[in-house]
């Protein structure tokens, strides 16, 4: 088992990083008066861990016995029926699903499937009416219509069903949905917190940690706990006992982007642009999301630039990323950014050195 899963805190009491949030959530549940919740925060900050721990707190250990179900729903949409395939993760008490998987048909999921699930009210052994929890991931990726549909569902079935929404940025969730939930912000753990977690894992595994080693991993992790733990485990596999100056392997795609960045800075010509295109294609084929490629590329380029150029370059990065969102083919926009950068940089070089 990966350490990331092995050392995932199972209950709210064992949470190390977001102790205050966990305590508040616990209070929330003990009053048995749970509102709809919206968790938001950057990736790797522990949203999912908290949600799972919360469910356990609510329903006891049986909430962890989940089974994966792949079901095809037939949705009647007026003139035709639409088949929607949806993977859900369900226990007796909760259902977890990813409504944005359905792409542009997400509206039907919200209108039909979630409504259907929300309507059914579970009854516990004592014959009391319980409530069901629906965990919806990536609500920020839902279309506007789907979010509109969600708002009424949330009100209408609030007696029998609680929604736990989970997303990266709450800007993309409409106001109407946000105002119906208790918003819980999960920030990325600080480097000290990451160090604390790594040391905890090290102790459990019986590892000798040279001083400063955990801090270095934390620094490289960009404040993502998941990444830090994965990197830690990789280091363990590569070399043990640790030495304090052991190299922490970077992600290979990041290496690759940094290579692209130095290529671009070295030479600005159509020929180089062509080569860069090949490399970017390589990244996209390996399923690195285009916006992450662009962001990383900007990050690498900014390291190599003078202050006045930085402003200009980050403006164009934002500009092309926005266009990428509106358009269809990401490669065009990344390439446009690269070309734009080349032209700015070349102009700068000519102006400075003649």
């Amino acid at each position, binding site marked *: 088992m990966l350490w990331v899963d092995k050392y995932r805190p199972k209950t709210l009491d064992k949470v190390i990083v977001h102790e205050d949030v966990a305590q508040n959530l616990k*209070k*929330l*549940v003990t009053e*048995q*008066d*749970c*509102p709809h919740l919206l968790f*938001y925060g*950057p990736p790797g*900050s522990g949203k999912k861990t908290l949600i799972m721990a919360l469910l356990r707190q609510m329903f006891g250990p049986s909430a962890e016995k989940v089974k994966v179900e792949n079901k095809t729903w037939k949705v009647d*949409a*007026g*003139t035709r029926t639409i088949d929607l395939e949806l993977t859900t993760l369900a226990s007796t008490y909760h259902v977890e699903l990813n409504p944005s998987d359905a792409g542009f048909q997400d509206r039907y999921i919200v*209108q039909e499937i979630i*409504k259907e699930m929300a309507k059914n009210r579970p009854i516990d052994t004592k014959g*009391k009416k*319980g*409530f069901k929890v629906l965990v919806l991931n990536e609500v920020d990726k839902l279309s506007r219509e789907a979010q*509109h*549909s969600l*708002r*009424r569902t949330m*009100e209408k079935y*609030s*007696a029998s069903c609680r929604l736990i929404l989970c997303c990266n*940025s*709450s*800007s993309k969730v409409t*106001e*109407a949905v*946000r*105002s*119906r*939930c*208790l*918003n819980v*912000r*999960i*920030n*990325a753990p600080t480097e000290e917190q990451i160090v604390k977690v790594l040391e905890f894992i090290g102790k459990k595994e019986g590892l000798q940690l040279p001083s400063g080693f955990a801090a270095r991993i934390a620094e490289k992790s960009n*404040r993502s706990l998941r990444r830090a733990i994965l990197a830690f485990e990789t280091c363990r596999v590569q070399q043990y006992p640790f030495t304090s100056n052991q190299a922490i392997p970077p992600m290979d795609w990041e290496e690759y982007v940094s290579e692209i960045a130095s290529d671009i800075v070295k030479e600005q010509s159509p020929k180089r642009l062509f080569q860069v295109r090949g490399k970017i294609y390589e990244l996209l084929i390996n399923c690195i999301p285009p*916006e992450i490629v*662009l*962001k990383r590329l900007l990050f690498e380029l900014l390291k190599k630039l003078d*202050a006045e150029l*930085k*402003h*200009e370059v*980050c*403006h164009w*990065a*934002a500009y092309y*990323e*926005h266009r990428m*969102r*509106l358009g269809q083919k990401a490669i065009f926009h990344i390439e446009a950014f690269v070309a734009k950068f080349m032209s*700015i940089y070349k*102009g*700068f070089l000519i*102006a400075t050195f003649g």
Partner: protein
Amino acid sequence: MAPVIQSSQQWVEKYRPKQVKDVAHQDEVVRVLTNTLETGSCPHMLFYGPPAVLERILTMDDLVRIDNFLHIEPELYKSRVLELNASDDRGINVVRTKIKNFAAVAVGSGRQGGYPCPPFKIIILDEADSMTEDAQASLMLCGVPWKLTPESQDSFSFVITSAGAFSDAFFQIIEPLASRCAKFRFKPLSEDIMTGRVLHICKEEGLDLDSEALSTLSSISQGDLRRAITYLQGAARLFGSSISSKDLISVSGVIPQEVVQSLFAACKGGDFDVVNKEVNNVILEGYPVSQMLSQLFEVIVGADDISDEQKAKICKKLAETDKCLVDGADEYLQLLDVASITTRVLCNMPLELSYEN
């Protein structure tokens, strides 16, 4: 053990007005409605207003149901009232079939079971602004034929409600449809009324709210009563019965002023790397960028040491960025862009690179 529900009801639902006269402070509307009742003739009605006063939307179906506002016998409710909202599919097809079929059957009047049952049906279309234009057009036409024959003249009546961001929701209702309806505009609640309502809830729930917290609540909820109540409930659940203004800020998702100020200070400093670090921090702390923008906007407009021209330039960028965010652009890049422009404007750096072209 599965949880037992005692007071699992959302406060928003719990304290929703139950009777027409309780409807929070929309006097004219209430008067007209009451009149309508007494005379027994009911025009098509269109309710609209900012989302703040949502109390009203559901009031309408509650009106029918709970208060017997329209004096329909409970058993007849199903056959007399059709309610559709955005969680139902409401394409043109539904209008053509479901609504039309429902409306086509005329009902008689007559007192049944002690209720003066009005001789028409009611169709409630909630959140009509999210209906497609086609559907609205066909809605309008489907209203016409039944109006032509005198005997079925009053056979049904639409109640259309439209919620949405302020008045633009109204403009999403197409003109010909709007002109067929009696329009009721619900105004945003004034601060006194909100405070009164909030205090009422506090009393009912046994909460302790000091005056500072109260003013914080009204400022963070921006006149939106539902939001205020939701925050209040959230804070009450998390922090117990005595609530301070800090607790309210932490549940509301408003960004603490220090964070905004430190970003602003970084922009003033003029060093790109410091700004970048600050932006990164905002993102990693998980603050929503749209919220950041609006708070940054307040800081910039309120600042005394910035010239009007500088303010204008920054605000222009803020507006553009807001649009980009709505389109789904990446938060980090957009905020960085804003911060970079702000830096350049504040430090009087040129916005365009001079050696270009």
